[in-house]
């Protein structure tokens, strides 16, 4: 039996405002273009001073987040199937020194919103003047093969194929996307929804907060009449992803013991890319990038003499196990670590099972609740007594 955990869905309210689902009409069957027009309108009307959104670079080799203030230069694809860098990290970078005095709109997929929630809780980002525009995620392709996929040339077709599970699109998604914790954004001020909609005709616009309500004031939106389809589609995709994740965990449960573990990390070149791209690894200077573990030459020789030999650069397993200890409680499963690995080590095969295990232990769902504290800063006096005294 596959155990399925689902988050609350349906109507809910924040403060005294009732949340309503609205719909936006799509022009000429161009889903991506219509969302782009909506965003353009937000910039033109100065509802947001700037936008952080995915836009293709001129070579068309990749899409990157751009911070854009000129509506005429906006040519975004909010649903682009690529995640080269963490948007949450970028918001941390933008707001860490001082938060913006005017609103910035950020278009984010669910894993990045989860990461941002974690960063806010870890005091690494300030969302005071950030308006989160969440978009339904259909999954992303690996960054180094992205330009090979013809699907990216016709963005709206990619959306339609993905929703209908047509063709090979799903097959090429990153393993992190295949096993996504929840492709529907939560904690966003507004959500632009694809699932359960006919994206060539209309898109769901869900307003979740006062900020979101203010953002869309004066926009031409209609009240959604029927949300049944949406609910059904959300449930389906969540069940599917959870099932995938459980199967993935079961499949990968053979990486156990020091021999298997040493073999798993054998190709690691100690580049620390996985740490650098991880939205949760936020230390300004990582211990492993410092000289803490640099020894005197004689100590290295002593180390060699103890075992006869040892691999250089050393400490790669120490790095990975320590990284896990530091970030796995808050791991949102975005899979950027795996994507950034030059040796193609399938890191998700280890991170997903461990994340699931640890988060279950602390009954913590990263990115779900802005108010809930991260497990490592809180405690209960009478917990885990079997660990301290047996």
């Amino acid at each position: 039996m596959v155990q399925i955990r689902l988050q609350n869905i349906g109507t809910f309210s924040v403060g005294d405002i009732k949340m309503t689902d609205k719909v936006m009409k799509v022009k000429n069957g161009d889903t991506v273009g219509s969302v782009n027009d909506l965003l353009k309108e937000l910039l033109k009307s100065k509802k947001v001073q700037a936008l952080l959104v995915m836009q293709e670079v001129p070579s068309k080799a990749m899409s990157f987040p751009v911070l854009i203030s000129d509506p005429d230069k906006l040519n975004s694809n909010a649903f682009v199937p690529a995640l080269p860098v963490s948007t949450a990290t970028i918001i941390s970078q933008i707001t860490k020194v001082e938060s913006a005095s005017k609103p910035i709109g950020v278009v984010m997929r669910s894993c990045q919103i989860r990461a941002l929630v974690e960063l806010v809780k870890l005091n690494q980002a300030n969302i005071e003047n950030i308006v989160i525009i969440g978009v339904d995620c259909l999954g992303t392709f690996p960054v180094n093969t992205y330009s090979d996929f013809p699907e990216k040339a016709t963005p709206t077709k990619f959306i339609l194929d993905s929703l209908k599970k047509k063709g090979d699109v799903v097959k090429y998604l990153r393993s992190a996307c295949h096993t996504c914790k929840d492709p529907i954004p939560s904690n966003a001020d507004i959500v632009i929804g694809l699932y359960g909609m006919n994206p060539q005709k209309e898109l769901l616009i869900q307003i979740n907060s006062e900020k979101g309500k203010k953002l869309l004031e004066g926009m031409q939106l209609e009240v959604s009449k029927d949300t049944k389809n949406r609910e059904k589609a959300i449930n389906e995709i969540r069940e599917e992803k959870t099932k995938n994740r459980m199967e993935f965990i079961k499949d990968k449960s053979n990486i156990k013991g020091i021999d298997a573990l040493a073999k798993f990390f054998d190709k690691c070149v100690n580049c620390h890319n996985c740490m650098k791209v991880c939205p949760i690894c936020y230390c300004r200077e990582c211990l492993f990038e410092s000289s803490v573990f640099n020894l005197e030459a004689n100590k290295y020789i002593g180390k060699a003499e103890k075992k006869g030999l040892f691999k250089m650069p050393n400490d790669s397993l120490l790095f990975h196990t320590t990284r896990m200890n530091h970030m796995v409680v808050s791991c949102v499963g975005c899979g950027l670590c795996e994507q950034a690995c030059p040796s193609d080590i399938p890191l998700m095969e280890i991170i997903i099972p461990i994340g699931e295990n640890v988060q279950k232990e602390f009954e913590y769902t990263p990115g779900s609740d802005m108010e809930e504290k991260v497990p490592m800063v809180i405690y209960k006096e009478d917990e885990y007594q079997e660990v301290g005294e047996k």
Partner: protein
Amino acid sequence: MVIKMEEFEPKIVGFLCNWCSYAGADLAGTSRIQYPPNIRVIKVMCSGSVDSVYIMRALLEGADGVFIGGCHPGDCHYLDGNYKARRKVVLMNSILETLGLEKERIWIRWVSASEGQKFADIMKEMTEEIKKLGPNPIAKHWNI
């Protein structure tokens, strides 16, 4: 090479907090209470300050066990360091379990400054238990 069990003397790295456990170990010494000399003591200001990296490093470098000694719950000099240390060990155990490494090699115990006897007893117990587990299997790997 076959290591006979009776010849195996485990190496235990101990992180003892400045305010309670270190003083407890000190008392065991000054009171001339005998206990196995397998522990290598590192004094830390608080059990809560022992990051997982130091525990992992000890184990990966070949220590057979790691001992963390803190003040009794409620007695922490910094109010709640020992509770946080306990959570760190729970986190670490959970990770080691998933990886199939032996979590029984990490011990966290509460020893107050007046409990010299308790410190000696824990050292006896831990040394025995680690002897039963045998030498750390991680130590022989050179490619980690």
